[in-house]
C-alpha cells in the first residue's frame, strides 16, 4: 500500500497538476465569494466560514476527479488490479493520497482565507484545521469511491459533483458550524458533537468505501 501512495506522490511531484488545480480552484472560489459580500459589512465575518467551506468543497470535488484520471492512460487501473493486493487496499491508498493532496492545498488556502476575510489569527485556527482535517478525510473517503465510478461513465465531469455533494452535506454543515464557533471565540467543547459527527462519518464511510470498492472497479 505504501508503494501505491508513493507512486501517486511521485507522479504528483512530476506534474503538479492536481495540486495546482486544487489551489487555483480554491483560490478562485474564495475571490469570487469575497466579491459577493461588501467588504465593509458585518455580514462578511458571518459569511466567512461558509465561504471557506464552499471553496474547500468545490476545489475538493474537482480535484478528486483527477485522482483516477491518472489511471486511465494505458489502462493502469487494470495494471493495479493485476497486482497481488486486495482491492480494498487500492482504495485506502488512493483515499490517503487524495486526503494528503487536499490537505496540502488547504495549508495554502487557509492563510489566504484569513487574509481576505480579515480574521484574527488566534488559537482558533487550531480548531479550524481540525475540522478541515476531519472534513477532508470524509470527502476523500466518499470522493475516492465515487471518483472510481464516475471516471468510467459518460459525462464524468458532471457526474462526480452530482454524486458527492448531496452525500457530504453533513460534513459541510458540521465544518461550517465548527469553524464559525471557533472563530467567534468559543471553546472547542461546545462543538464536540459536530466533531463527533464528522469523525463518525469518516469512520463509517471509510469502511463502506473499503468494502464497496471492489464492486466499483471489477467488471
Amino acid at each position, binding site marked *: 500500500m505504501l508503494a501505491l501512495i508513493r507512486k501517486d506522490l511521485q507522479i504528483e511531484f512530476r506534474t503538479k497538476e492536481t495540486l495546482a488545480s486544487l489551489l487555483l480552484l480554491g483560490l478562485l472560489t474564495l475571490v469570487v465569494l469575497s466579491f459577493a459580500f461588501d467588504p465593509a459589512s458585518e455580514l462578511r465575518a458571518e459569511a466567512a466560514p461558509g465561504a471557506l467551506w464552499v471553496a474547500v468543497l468545490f476545489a475538493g470535488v474537482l480535484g478528486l476527479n483527477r485522482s483516477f484520471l491518472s489511471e486511465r492512460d494505458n489502462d493502469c487501473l487494470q495494471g493495479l488490479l493485476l497486482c*497481488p493486493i486486495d482491492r480494498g487496499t487500492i482504495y485506502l491508498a488512493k483515499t490517503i493520497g487524495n486526503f494528503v493532496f487536499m490537505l496540502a492545498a488547504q495549508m495554502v488556502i487557509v492563510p489566504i482565507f484569513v487574509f481576505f476575510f480579515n480574521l484574527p489569527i488566534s488559537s482558533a485556527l487550531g480548531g479550524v484545521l481540525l475540522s478541515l482535517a476531519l472534513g477532508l478525510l470524509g470527502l476523500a473517503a466518499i470522493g475516492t469511491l465515487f471518483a472510481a465510478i464516475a471516471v468510467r461513465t459518460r459525462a464524468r465531469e458532471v457526474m462526480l459533483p452530482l454524486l458527492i455533494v448531496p452525500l457530504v452535506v453533513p460534513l459541510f454543515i458540521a465544518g461550517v458550524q465548527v469553524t464559525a464557533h471557533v472563530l467567534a471565540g468559543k471553546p472547542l467543547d461546545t462543538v464536540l458533537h459536530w466533531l463527533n459527527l464528522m469523525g463518525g462519518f469518516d469512520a463509517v464511510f471509510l469502511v463502506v468505501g473499503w468494502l464497496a470498492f471492489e464492486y466499483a472497479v471489477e467488471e
Partner: protein
Amino acid sequence: MSGPVVEGRGVGRRFAGVTALRDVDLSVAAGEAVAVFGPNGAGKTTLLRLLATVLRPSAGTLRLFERPLEDGGAQARRRIGLLSHRSFLYPDLTPVENLEFYARMFRVPQAAARVRDLLEQVGLAGWAHRPLRTLSRGMEQRCALARVLLHEPDLLLLDEPFSGLDLDAGTTLSGLLQRERARGSAWLMTTHEIGRAFELCTRALILVRGRLVWDGAINTAQRDQFEERYRTLTHGSDLALSHHAGADP
C-alpha cells in the same frame, strides 16, 4: 509443480446480456506453450482476463495453481503476468520508476538490480530515465514486456504480443518467451500470426463466438492442415490469419 496450472470447467462469462465465453473446458500444465486463435470477438481477450483474475467467471469453475478462485485471488496474482494491448504503465514516470513501482507491488527481491537487468534485456537501457511519454510506442511495448517478466510469473498471458512490435523486438520477445518456457512457466498467447505461433507453441486452441471448438497439439509440419481446419471452423466469421514475413520457415 504437480498439478495443472490452469483448470477450468464449463467456464462462461457474460457482459450485459452478451455471452463472451460459453462452456469452456481447459487444462494447462506447467511448461506448456499454448496459442489461442479465433476471429475478432471470439472471446480470446476475455479468456485471458479471466485467467488473470481481472474478471470473474459468471459460470463454471476455474482453478489456478490448484486453488479455487474465491480464496487467494491475490495469492494467485503473484504468479501471473498479463501483457495486453495497453501497457499499464504511467506516462509521467520513467521506465525505471514504473518498473520499480511494480517490483515493489509484487515484492520482487533485489528490485533495483532486477529492473536494470530486464531493461537491458529488452533493449531500453539507454532510455531508462526519460518519462515514458517521450518514448515511442515500440519502446513502451518493450517496457511493458519487462513489467510482465519482472516477478517471474508461472503463468504468462499474452494478448497479441507481436502486433505493433518491430522485427527486432519480435525476436527479443521470442527469445524471452522460449526462456520462460525453459524455466517451467506456462503461457497462453492470443494471436493472429500463425507463423510465430507454430514457431513457439506446442498446442493451439480455437475459439469461435465464445466456444472452444478445437484444442490440440501442433507442430510445424501440420501447419497447412491447421490453416485448413481453421478456415472451416470459422466459416463465415471474420478471418484474419496472417503470415509474419520474418518467421516463415
